C-alpha cells in the first residue's frame, strides 16, 4: 500500500498543528461557533446528539494492521471502546471530547492517517472496490488512481468551499463494486478499441434527497489527463453550481438543469485550456503504481487439500466459505470478509479489542492489510485457502464470522437518531429487529442475495435508494414512520428503488420486510434472485401483500 514520504508526513503534521490552533481559539472564545463550524467540519468533526463525532479518513478503504491497531487504541483511549465503519469506507467515533480531538489527530498522524476533508463542502474521501488488486474480473487496479486523486484533492486551494460536498469513486473491474453510478464523479477503468486503458467518466450521480444515476460525460479519457479532467469538472461546478439552496447545490442538480450536453461542452472547453499543463507525468504514475504492484504469491497454495476436506467435514465452515469469502485472481487464495453484521450488533460497529484482533489476523494471514467495504464490513484480501479454516475459527471466537455477506441480514445502516442530529428516526433498532426475524440460517440462505439498506432520514447515508429493499425513516407528527422502496441497486444495473406505498409505523417495519421476502419466495421462478423477481413483476404484487390488511 501507499507509504508516506516526507511531503505527505509534513502536510499531515502541519494540518494537525493548524487544527490544534483552531480548537484552541474556539475554546478560548476567539472563534465563535459559527466561525469554528466550517473549520471543524473540514476535519471531520461534527457536533452530534451526545457528543462530537469524529470521522477519520480511510483512503479507498485500505488499512495496514498498524493503522487498525491505532484505530482500536483511539476507540479505547478517547471513546467508549468502539468505532463505526461507514459506507464511504471511513470510521466514525461517537464519543470523543472536543478538546481531545487535536491529540487524536496527532496520534493518527503517527500512522499516516488523518481526518482531512471527511466532511464539509469539499472533495471527500475517494472510494473504491474492496476487491481491488485481487479480483479476477479486474482490468486494472484502481487504487493507484485513487491515491493520485487523494493527493490532488487534499487541501486543494481552489475547491475547499464548493457549493456542496463532492464524492468520487473509482472502479477497475467488470462488476461495479464501488457504486460509481451514484457518485458526483464515477470513474471506470475501460479499454478502448486500440487496447489502451483509460477512464469512462460519469458525472452527476448521487443519493440523498434527490437521487440520480450518473451520466457518461466522456466515454474514454486517457489516464494522463485524469487530473486535468477532474479539475475542469470541479471548476465548472465551483463557478456555476447553485449556492442559493443547499438542497439543490450538488453537481447532479447543475448537470440536470444545464443538460448533460451543454454541461459537457463547458467542461471540455475548460479542459482544453488546462490539459497540457496538467498532464500527469509517467514517472509519477509509475511511482504510485509501484506501491500497489502485484505481490508474490505462493504457487503451492492451490495444492492444499485440507480446505476441501474441512468444508466437507464441517458444514458451518463450508457455509462461511460459501457466503463470506470471494474468489481471488490467484488460484489457492481467497478474500475473506470479516462480518460486522452479527445479530444484536449495530451494522458496521466494531470494538477496540476486535480491531486489534483483526489486525493480528491480518498480520498472520493476509499480508498485514485490511480493507473496509462500502457495505460496512472488513475484508482480508489475500488469504491462502489452507489458512481459511484457522482464520474462520478465530473470527468465530471474536463474533466476526456471521456467515451472511450479501444476504438479507448484511444490512447497510446509518447511525440514525441514536447518534445523529440530522436523523428523524432510529435506524439501528429497525436493522436489529429485521435481523432477529431472519435468524433461521436455512431461510436466510434460501432468500439468496438481498441488499437491505436503511437510512434514518432523507439525507440517505444508509443508501436506502439503492437497496433491493430500501427503508427510509420519516417523521410524522413526532412519530417515527418508515417509507419502503423496492428494486434499487448501485451495481452495474444501477437503479433507484420504487416507492412501495404509504409509510408504515416503526413497529410494523419488521413484519413488512418479512411479508416482502415471503412474497418473493412465493413468486420467484427457478433460481431467480430477489432483485430479478422485482424487476420482472414490478412492485404491484408486493403492494398487494404488504397492504392487504390496511
Amino acid at each position: 500500500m501507499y507509504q508516506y514520504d516526507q511531503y505527505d508526513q509534513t502536510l499531515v503534521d502541519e494540518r494537525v498543528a493548524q487544527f490544534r490552533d483552531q480548537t484552541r481559539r474556539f475554546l478560548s472564545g476567539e472563534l465563535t461557533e459559527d466561525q469554528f463550524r466550517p473549520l471543524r467540519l473540514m476535519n471531520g468533526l461534527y457536533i452530534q446528539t451526545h457528543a462530537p463525532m469524529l470521522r477519520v479518513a480511510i483512503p479507498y478503504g485500505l488499512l495496514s494492521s498498524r493503522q487498525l491497531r491505532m484505530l482500536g487504541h483511539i476507540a479505547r483511549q478517547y471513546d467508549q471502546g468502539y468505532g463505526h465503519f461507514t459506507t464511504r469506507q471511513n470510521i466514525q467515533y461517537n464519543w470523543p471530547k472536543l478538546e481531545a480531538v487535536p491529540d487524536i489527530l496527532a496520534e493518527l498522524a503517527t500512522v499516516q492517517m488523518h481526518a482531512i476533508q471527511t466532511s464539509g463542502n469539499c472533495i471527500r474521501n475517494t472510494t473504491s472496490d474492496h476487491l481491488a488488486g485481487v479480483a479476477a474480473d479486474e482490468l486494472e487496479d484502481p487504487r493507484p488512481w485513487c491515491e493520485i486523486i487523494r493527493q490532488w484533492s487534499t487541501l486543494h486551494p481552489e475547491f475547499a468551499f464548493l457549493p456542496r460536498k463532492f464524492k468520487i469513486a473509482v472502479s477497475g473491474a467488470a462488476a461495479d463494486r464501488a457504486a460509481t453510478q451514484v457518485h458526483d464523479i464515477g470513474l471506470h477503468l475501460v479499454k478502448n478499441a486500440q487496447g489502451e486503458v483509460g477512464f469512462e467518466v460519469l458525472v452527476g450521480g448521487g443519493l440523498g434527497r434527490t437521487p440520480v444515476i450518473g451520466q457518461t460525460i466522456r466515454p474514454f479519457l486517457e489516464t494522463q489527463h485524469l487530473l486535468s479532467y477532474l479539475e475542469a469538472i470541479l471548476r465548472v461546478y465551483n463557478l456555476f453550481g447553485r449556492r442559493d439552496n443547499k438542497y439543490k447545490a450538488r453537481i447532479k442538480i447543475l448537470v440536470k438543469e444545464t443538460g448533460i450536453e451543454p454541461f459537457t461542452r463547458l467542461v471540455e472547453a475548460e479542459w482544453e485550456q488546462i490539459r497540457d499543463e496538467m498532464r500527469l507525468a509517467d514517472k509519477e504514475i509509475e511511482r504510485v503504481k509501484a506501491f500497489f504492484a502485484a505481490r508474490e504469491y505462493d504457487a503451492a497454495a492451490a495444492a492444499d487439500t485440507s480446505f476441501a476436506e474441512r468444508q466437507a467435514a464441517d458444514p458451518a465452515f463450508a457455509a462461511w466459505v460459501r457466503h463470506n469469502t470471494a474468489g481471488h485472481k490467484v488460484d489457492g487464495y481467497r478474500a475473506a470478509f470479516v462480518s460486522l453484521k452479527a445479530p444484536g450488533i449495530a451494522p458496521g460497529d466494531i470494538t477496540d479489542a476486535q480491531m486489534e484482533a483483526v489486525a493480528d489476523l491480518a498480520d498472520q494471514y493476509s499480508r498485514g492489510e485490511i480493507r473496509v467495504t462500502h457495505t460496512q464490513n472488513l475484508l482480508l484480501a489475500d488469504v491462502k485457502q489452507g489458512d481459511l479454516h484457522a482464520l474462520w475459527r478465530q473470527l468465530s471466537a471474536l463474533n466476526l464470522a456471521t456467515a451472511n455477506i450479501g444476504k438479507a441480514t448484511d444490512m447497510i445502516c446509518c447511525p440514525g437518531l441514536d447518534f445523529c442530529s440530522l436523523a428523524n428516526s432510529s435506524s439501528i433498532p429497525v436493522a436489529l429487529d429485521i435481523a432477529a426475524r431472519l435468524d433461521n440460517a436455512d431461510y436466510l440462505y434460501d432468500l439468496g442475495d438481498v441488499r437491505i439498506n436503511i437510512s434514518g432520514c432523507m439525507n440517505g447515508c444508509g443508501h436506502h435508494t439503492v437497496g433491493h429493499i430500501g427503508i427510509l425513516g420519516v417523521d410524522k407528527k413526532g412519530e417515527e414512520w418508515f417509507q419502503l422502496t423496492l428494486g434499487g441497486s448501485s451495481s452495474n444495473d444501477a437503479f433507484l428503488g420504487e416507492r412501495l406505498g404509504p409509510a408504515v409505523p416503526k413497529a410494523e417495519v419488521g413484519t413488512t420486510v418479512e411479508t416482502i421476502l415471503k412474497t418473493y419466495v412465493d413468486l420467484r421462478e427457478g433460481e431467480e434472485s430477489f432483485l430479478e423477481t422485482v424487476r420482472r413483476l414490478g412492485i404491484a404484487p408486493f403492494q398487494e401483500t404488504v397492504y392487504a390488511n390496511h
Partner: protein
Amino acid sequence: MQIIKDGAIVNDDIRHLADDEAPAAGRFTVSFERWQAEKAGLAAAGVRLRGEHAVADIAADLPRLELVVVEFPALADGRGFSHARLLRDRYGYAGEVRALGGFIRDQVYFLSRVGVNAFEPAAGTDLQALLPALGEFTVNYQAAADHKQPAYHRR
C-alpha cells in the same frame, strides 16, 4: 486604512466607490456592473468582482487595471477562489488581486495559493493575527497559481 499585501501590513488609500458615488480624486475601485457601463470614461484603478461575474468579461481590460478585487460576501462562497486562479493562470494577470470582505483567517492560505496577494478583511479584523496563516503549510500536493508544478516533480 491598512491591508495585508505581499505578506506585510501596509497602508492603503484606495476607496471602494458605491455605484451612486461620484468618482473623486485619488485611487478607487468600482463594481463590475459600473465598470461594464462606464469604463470608457472611468479612471478606476480596479474592478470588484463577485461570485456571479465572469473573469472573461474583464479579460480585455486587465492591462489597464492596477488591481482586481474579488469580493467574498460570505466565507462559504468559494467562487472567488476560481476567479483568482483564472486571473493568474488563464489571463496572466500580474497586478494586485485583492480578497475583500467576509473571508476568514483560515482561508488566507488557500487564497494565497490561488493568486490573491492582498487581503482586506472585514473591518475590525486583527491583521497581525492573519499574517501567520500565510505560512501554515510548507508543502502542497497540487499546482496552483503559486507553484506551477505539483509536488511530485520534487520527489
